[in-house]
């Protein structure tokens, strides 16, 4: 379970990105995090993995806990074992020249034996439908393939929580469908920050609307996304499928 209690965050020399965020996300829930650009969605995801706040003191509590483990400096390894973070730009995440090296990065840092690392690399690449891509150069992949390799790198660590930052941006429809299918097969908790509301409607049972660093609404996807007044108030739109009654 993810718990955030009165989480506030201000970037050094900048504006407040998160203000008194209180959240509880149960294990296995798939939650959409929506809001206008600059609402604090990415900042919130970075807190889930302990990448923020910066320079966290060893005994200081950030106000976030994952599965009962508080995010503190001395707990970062345990936290990062639990939470897999997918970055918006795949070029930020794919830092190895060869696909298999990148996918193996996480398992190697978990100090797993070589046989286990090899098995996880094979399984993760198969899970994202890129089983034959192990020795491809990352720079030669399409955006969709890069995103899937990034996801393989995250899945290879076998996290219980996936935190995904705009996973569907810049994807063509086919790549988008493939990524949706992969996420639908993931059994753990997912927090998906996205502007793609049709996709939120398809994947998430619950939606959190974030605006100006505060939680403005939190509830069942259909109820939130069909509230036209709420959506427009926070720079969003009722998704096409909901507006046209095509979401069943």
């Amino acid at each position, binding site marked *: 379970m993810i718990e955030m209690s009165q989480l506030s965050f201000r970037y050094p020399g900048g504006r407040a990105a998160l203000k008194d965020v209180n959240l509880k996300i149960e294990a296995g829930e798939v939650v959409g995090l929506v809001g206008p650009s600059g609402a604090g969605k990415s900042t919130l995801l970075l807190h889930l993995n302990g990448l923020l706040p910066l320079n966290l003191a060893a005994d200081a509590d950030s106000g976030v806990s994952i599965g009962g483990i508080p995010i503190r400096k001395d707990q970062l390894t345990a936290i990062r074992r639990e939470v897999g973070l997918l970055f918006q730009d795949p070029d*930020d995440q794919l830092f190895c020249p060869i696909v298999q090296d990148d996918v193996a990065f996480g398992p190697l840092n978990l100090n797993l034996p070589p046989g286990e*690392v090899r098995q996880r690399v094979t399984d993760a690449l198969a899970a994202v439908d890129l089983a034959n891509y192990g020795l491809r150069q990352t720079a030669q992949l399409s955006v969709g393939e890069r995103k899937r390799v990034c996801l393989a790198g995250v899945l290879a660590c076998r996290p219980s929580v996936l935190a995904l930052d705009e996973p569907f941006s810049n994807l063509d429809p086919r790549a988008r469908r493939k990524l949706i299918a992969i996420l639908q097969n993931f059994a753990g908790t997912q927090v998906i920050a996205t502007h793609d509301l049709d996709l939120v409607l398809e994947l998430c049972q619950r939606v959190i609307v974030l605006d100006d660093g505060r939680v403005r609404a939190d509830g069942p996807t259909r109820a939130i996304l069909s509230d036209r007044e709420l959506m427009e108030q926070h720079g969003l739109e009722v998704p096409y499928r909901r507006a046209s009654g095509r979401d069943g």
Partner: protein
Amino acid sequence: MISYLDRYARGATVCHRWPASLKLLLAFAVTLTSVLLPHQAWPAQGVLACFVFAGHSLAGIPFDYLLRRLLAFAPLVMMMSLALPLSQGFAAGWEVMLSILCRSGVAFLAGLWLINVMPFDQLLFTLHRFGMPKLLVAMLAFMYRYVFVLWDEYDRMQTARSARDFGGGSAALRWRIRSQLIGMLLIRAMSRAERVHGAMCARGWDGTVRVFEIPPESVTRNGNHRTI
């Protein structure tokens, strides 16, 4: 950009079929010999240069490819080697300057041959096997990965500039804009470095370099792998 550095690395010539360690030793031996030869040993330098050119021919690397890269490399070495005669009022130091030019040319061509007769990942793996520290191997891997990303970023910025410069402006203005682009690229590279570091930490990076020990000799001709 992807093929700029090592366009011929996945060829099928006799050089590509040699063991990776032999290729590395050959390139290293040529460079070391060139560096250690005395200034006056011009014929020996010539022999080494012929040897390197023969290697390029055997590897099927076209002459115009070599020439273009030599032209890109030459001004840099020229400026550095010119410092010697310059420091002596152009009265002496010309022989040493020519010697520096010759040695660096041979070393550069040997290095170019090396990266064009085996994929870069195989080269890194071989260097690691020969005892190169993991940290250095990781730094080279990062460099190889991000040189393409940064080049693409520069390309996009250039395109955006071209879309709005309407072909006008003086040469001075164009140079100013180009230097601003490079400055912007540096700032973007720094912020990307921060994000990459975040992505590494997110997957358990603790400052220790760990290498995935699977020899890249299992690469097939089309770049796919047979087994992991």
